[in-house]
């Protein structure tokens, strides 16, 4: 009778984490940037049909990197959970925090259960409030950890390089144009070169609190992106941001 090899729990978890991290690092980054009127998501995605950023509910959006089939399942679960809660109670009772918790429990349980392959995904759950102080961006990793991000957040591919770029240049209270331009140049930034990503290769969506409809999520079409990116750059830091913090 053969004796099974002993593998320490630390090693086991590390192997699973490395496996998940490798899968996530293969994809392109997704950035979320807070601006005066909401939260903007951007990623390089040549497909117009397979989305990485989607609507969950009135004020809640979802973005993901990693394996498409896995995060698509999570997205659908989120839509079902949110719609069911909103139908059983009220639209205002659907919160980003509740959703982030459900995702965290799911990802965490799958990660630490021995029998299943960990999900190779990382996700953002963002919710906008009445003002930018109340906006929330949660970042969830493959093992179910939740981080509450402020201002901007990056996940996937070269997240440290893109994150470093954003850290240097992010200011609160930006306009939509400024936030978009920052997000797109951050996505094109790498240690060796700075690329300009064409509007047609971008997937950009915003949660915009100025929308009249209760559903605040809107995708920016390639045509709208070209217009926004072509708009003359706002004067640099001489002038105060559009909505100065109170």
């Amino acid at each position, binding site marked *: 009778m053969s004796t099974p090899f002993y593998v320490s729990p630390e090693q086991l978890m590390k192997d699973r984490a490395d496996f998940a991290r490798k899968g996530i690092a293969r994809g392109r980054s997704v950035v979320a940037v807070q601006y005066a009127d909401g939260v903007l998501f951007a990623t390089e995605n040549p497909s117009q049909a397979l989305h990485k950023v989607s609507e969950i509910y009135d004020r809640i959006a979802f973005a993901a990197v990693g394996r498409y089939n896995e995060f698509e399942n999570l997205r659908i679960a989120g839509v*079902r959970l949110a719609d069911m809660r909103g139908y059983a109670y009220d639209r205002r009772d659907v919160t980003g925090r509740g959703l982030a918790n459900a995702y965290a429990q799911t990802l965490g349980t799958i990660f630490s259960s021995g029998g299943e392959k960990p999900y190779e995904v990382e996700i953002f759950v963002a919710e906008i409030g009445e003002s930018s102080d109340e906006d929330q961006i949660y970042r969830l990793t493959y093992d179910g950890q939740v981080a509450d991000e402020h201002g901007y957040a990056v996940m996937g591919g070269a997240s440290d390089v893109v994150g470093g770029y954003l850290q240097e240049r992010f200011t609160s209270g930006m306009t939509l144009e400024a936030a978009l331009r920052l997000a797109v140049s951050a996505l094109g930034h790498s240690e060796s070169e700075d690329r300009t990503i064409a509007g047609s290769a971008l997937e950009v969506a915003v949660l915009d609190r100025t929308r009249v409809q209760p559903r605040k999520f809107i995708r920016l079409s390639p045509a709208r992106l070209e217009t926004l990116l072509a708009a003359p750059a706002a004067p640099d830091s001489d002038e105060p941001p559009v909505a100065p913090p109170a």
Partner: protein
Amino acid sequence: MIPDDPRLPAAFLQPGTASFADFIAAQAPDLLPGRRTLPRGNAGDLAPHGTTIVAMTFPGGVLLAGDRRATMGNLIASRDIEKVFPTDEYSAAGIAGTAGLAVEMIRLFQTELEHYEKIEGTTLSFDGKANRLAGIIRANLGMAMQGLAVVPLFVGYDLRAARGRIFSFDVTGGRYEETGFHAVGSGSLFARGSLKKLYRPDLGVDDAVTVAVQALYDAADDDSATGGPDVGRRIFPIVHVVTAEGGHRVDAEVVAATADRVIAGRMGRPDGPVAPLDLPGASEGGLA
């Protein structure tokens, strides 16, 4: 699934249906309006009933309007109930029948349309929406037979056909497309008679609002369950317009001003505008 597993239930993560109603039918059937078993007997007198809804198409869109009364037997249960709801950006529904169930069905239908849109990334076709609503009504047949019927009027702008459309329903889920105009509810006979004389296919939006208010006035004139314009409390019909740009509720002040004009006209002639006796000439075309 282990019962004390903290993760989302497996059914949530299962790819498959894009229908919210189908999903909760499997996961939380008690949330569906049509799934309850009632004791024998007629429950119709226990709950408030909504009354008259009118709809008409005009070039470039469609209009839906409802009075504000709910009745319970001989009593007025509500003077300011809202019976016209946007169901998504390009459609709206008005309800006649048991108010509580109807509001719940509309909520289910709204969620159904939004759920499909979010999961599939595209909206249902206009006929698809009408068929889903027919399914929701059909599921309520048992309760309809015990006096708790709900009969909606569904309108919207069909982006593919580029015109406004109207669908009426019966309690068995029958779905009928109406041309030009239609009315449902207790006062609908009188409203339809009024619409027959006042409606023409080339109405502008403002005139369509006037025709709707006139028709509801005529319904209230002869049907005790339909509420007329309440001048004392300034409660007037709710009017919803859907065009290619989406739907919006007509400003309450616009409706109030229209209602004031209609009432002023009725002071002179209580039966409302006179329709010409001559048949319209062949060149003008008949009414739909």
